[in-house]
């Protein structure tokens, strides 16, 4: 047998023995162990519950946004996600609104664009037909014909909104699939009258179902010609959005540059000045959201690490008590051939096992807690693998750091004295 194989076997044997002994010790002192574990449990729980919740939200956002289409981007007066200070906010406010005319110029001049739509959000309200009425949270958007292509919306029944609709400011609407099903439960909605927030419209089309989009509204929205909406409701504070679908994925960046140039020209932005509008795509949105969740996660990790630090002090305290209680045992082990190192390893492993048990319960509760949130929000569950790995590592580190001093104390006990210890 080689020395190396012998060493490995010795180590494994020692490890197994130590884990077995520490489980024993923990089982014997149930209350004490539980109280000690509680600190670790809370620390790990908070890390895991937050990373689970963040994972759930991320999955949801990614899934929703990806329906905008990979080659579509949007132009707005305000950035889609804002963390800025007040100065930034005021800067956005002072910007000129994006108008339908600017959208038309883009449509005309942006040769690399496949489809250009202009969109405005007008209201959330109640929709009523002779058959049924909805809750007061149906979103109403104004659109141009290009919006349908840019969004990737498909028509299930009837037609989309057309240029004549816009020119005439017609009182017509296209319904999301879920909305159509709610208010026309018995048959086709096309050609039927509805009242959007009390104002009568005629349904000309119904969209194909497409899951959730537009900020998690589902298919629970109605679309009217943008001109009709502007005439009836006026321009909302956030202005309009221009949606641009690039002709091809390869020409995406060029298309974005072209649109930027066209808008700078039409909005009279001088060379050298910053854009007075925001261009963003799915990727930038997801990126921004991720940087937000990362910030939250880092914050929680820091706070939880402090909790774990406090728990570590508790572990150290308990381990010191344990060393004193088991002085005799240490003496016996030393007498029958345990080296200092063997004793130290045994106690460090005991500390780590204690931490890991706390960590395991914390992880279980955290994953459960985060997924209960997901369930309440009707989102798919998530398993935060990164968080779990982090928890295992943190527990081991805490166990090692705070187990070392008691372990060294145990290892350096004089065997003769400890054999005599009562």
């Amino acid at each position, binding site marked *: 047998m080689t020395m190396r194989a012998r060493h490995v076997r010795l180590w494994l044997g*020692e490890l197994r023995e130590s884990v077995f002994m520490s489980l024993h010790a923990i089982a014997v002192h149930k209350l004490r162990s539980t109280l000690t574990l509680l600190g670790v449990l809370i620390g790990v729980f908070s890390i895991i519950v937050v990373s689970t919740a963040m994972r759930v939200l991320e999955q949801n956002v990614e899934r929703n946004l990806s329906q905008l289409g990979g080659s579509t981007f949007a132009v707005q007066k305000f950035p889609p996600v804002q963390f800025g200070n007040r100065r930034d906010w005021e800067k956005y406010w002072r910007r000129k609104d994006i108008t339908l005319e600017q959208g038309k110029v883009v449509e005309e001049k942006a040769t690399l664009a496949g489809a250009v739509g202009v969109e405005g959000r007008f209201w959330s309200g109640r929709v009523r037909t002779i058959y049924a009425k909805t809750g007061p949270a149906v979103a109403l958007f104004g659109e141009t014909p290009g919006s349908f292509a840019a969004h990737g919306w498909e028509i299930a029944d009837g037609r989309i909104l057309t240029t004549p609709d816009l020119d005439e400011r017609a009182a017509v609407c296209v319904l999301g699939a879920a909305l159509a099903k709610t208010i026309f439960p018995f048959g086709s909605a096309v050609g039927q009258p509805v009242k959007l927030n009390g104002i009568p419209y005629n349904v000309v089309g119904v969209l194909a179902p497409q899951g959730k989009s537009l900020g998690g509204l589902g298919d629970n929205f109605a679309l009217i010609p943008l001109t009709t909406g502007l005439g009836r409701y006026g321009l909302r504070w956030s202005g309009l959005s221009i949606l641009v679908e690039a002709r091809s994925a390869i020409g995406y960046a060029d298309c974005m540059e072209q649109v930027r140039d066209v808008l700078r020209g039409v909005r009279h932005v001088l060379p050298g000045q910053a854009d007075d509008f925001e261009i963003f795509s799915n990727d930038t949105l997801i990126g921004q959201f991720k940087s937000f969740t990362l910030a939250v996660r880092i914050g929680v990790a820091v706070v939880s690490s402090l909790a774990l630090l406090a728990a570590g002090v508790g572990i150290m305290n308990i381990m010191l008590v344990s060393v004193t209680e088991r002085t005799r045992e240490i003496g016996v082990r030393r007498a029958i051939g*345990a080296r200092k190192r063997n004793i130290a390893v045994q106690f460090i492993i005991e500390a780590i096992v204690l931490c890991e048990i706390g960590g395991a319960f914390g992880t279980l509760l955290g994953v459960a807690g985060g997924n209960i949130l997901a369930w309440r929000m009707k989102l798919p569950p998530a398993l935060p693998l990164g968080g779990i790995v982090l928890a295992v590592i943190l527990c081991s580190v805490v166990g090692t750091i705070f187990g070392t001093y008691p372990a060294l104390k145990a290892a350096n006990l004089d065997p003769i004295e400890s054999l005599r210890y009562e």
Partner: protein
Amino acid sequence: MSLIRLENITRCYQMGEETIHALRGVSLEIERGEYVAIMGPSGSGKSTLMNLIGCLDTPSSGGYELNGARVSEMDDNELAAIRNREIGFVFQTFNLLARLNALRNVELPLVYAGVPSGERRRLAREALAQVGLADRLRHRPNQLSGGQRQRVAIARALVNRPAILLADEPTGNLDSKTGEEIMALFVELWRNGNTIIIVTHEEDVARRARRVIRLRDGGIAGDDRHKPASGERAVITPVAQT
């Protein structure tokens, strides 16, 4: 060559201002296969001598050779290894680990020797059978009588096939009948070829040994080899099950 050779061993302790000379120049040789009792009143240095022979302690001066190895110059790790290999301890208070069953207690020295678990289990079973506890493998110490506990401790001392079995007042916590049985077990082990050293202050226990070393004030006051007292035969023969 002697199994144990002590040359002019001294051991002093610092107790505050005072220096205590526990051993003042002890020289001693013990051969393989001997059955030795070390006797002496408290304070005579017999515990110190036992700790030195058992490699738990090193002398302040003088040389100690055990089985050809110079123990007096070893560091802590080497001492642990030699205790593991060469010494089997039997204590007055048994010193079994309360949370482990008999088999696991006996296995413990083999764990530190790095013996694989299957082999460990087999050797531990054998050792327990040797002390008459083949049917008590899974019992915890608190489920065993005093005599049985001491047998488990003896099995633990034997399991590594050490050069010497070193017993410190092995009958001190037992009633006289059980004590007799344990002493009979020692004699049997001695007959099987083990070297046995018993530290005691009881004349009864010492009388069973073939050699009695008497300590007084940190030095050797007497070293007698003798035949066992008559009538002992009756005690030696078969090991009674307790």
